[in-house]
């Protein structure tokens, strides 16, 4: 009997995932810059990238508990840099920590975009701890349709 599940990830997807995992591992092993103990500034925050061929990309990142003023988003050419810092936890003598799992401190992450973007039209919002950045593709870079004339 062949049992098949609709959403079963294919072997290729699994391989792909493994490769990404490996890349991240090597990346962070070689360029690991830590400020305090806290956030691994190299690959925080984790990002999801959404694409639409004609219009550009949307990048989402989970960064809960940020002060919007502490978030810095820069676009230079085809690179996007997100940096910021998350508040240091309460440091009080009368307070006893049971657990400390949430990261804190400052982080910077730079990613390479696949195409030049229209810097003036970049928009970002921060809602419920999720950062969303719209990166519209530059008009000049958009693929042009070439009409074929019949002779």
């Amino acid at each position, binding site marked *: 009997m062949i049992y098949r599940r609709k959403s079963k990830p294919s072997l290729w997807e699994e391989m792909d995932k493994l490769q990404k995992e490996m890349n991240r591992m090597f990346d962070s092993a070689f360029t690991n810059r830590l400020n305090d103990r806290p956030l691994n500034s190299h690959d925080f925050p984790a990002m*999801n990238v959404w694409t639409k061929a004609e219009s550009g990309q949307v990048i989402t990142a989970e960064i809960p508990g940020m002060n919007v003023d502490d978030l810095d988003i820069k676009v230079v050419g085809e690179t996007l840099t997100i940096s910021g810092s998350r508040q240091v936890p309460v440091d009080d003598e009368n307070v006893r920590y049971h657990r400390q799992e949430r990261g804190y401190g400052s982080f910077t992450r730079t990613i390479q975009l696949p195409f030049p973007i229209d810097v003036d039209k970049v928009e970002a919002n921060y809602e419920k701890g999720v950062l969303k950045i719209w990166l519209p593709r530059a008009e000049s870079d958009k693929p042009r349709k070439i009409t074929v004339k019949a002779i």
Partner: protein
Amino acid sequence: MNEQLSNPETQKQEIVEQDQAERTRESRMYVPRVDIYESEAAIHILADIPGADENSIDITLEKNVLTIDADVHAEKPQDYSLMYAEYGIGGFRRKFNISNEIDQERIVAEVKDGVLKLVLPKSEKVTQKISVKAAKE
């Protein structure tokens, strides 16, 4: 090597069902990262639950078991397709055993920017201590 992979800050931990029961829905669930600290008067819990808001969080305290349950309905950018993903999207759930006597009436919970803040005030009535006397023979 393991340390890099299990970097607590970037990898969300997915829930592994411990008892036999499974969830009926297929969506993913994650374990929220928390800070818990205790002050003289209360126990404070901070939990990272990005994507959840005040309407999608359920907090229950039953017989010293505190359950945090948060649903996440992430809107996908319309017409865009996910090209590269480093984190999964799903709800959050975590349970804690609270040992101290908690004043259930005065529990305060608020959520802001994806961080849940819970203050569990300790009950006024102090647990009675029973002194043990040495019995005389």
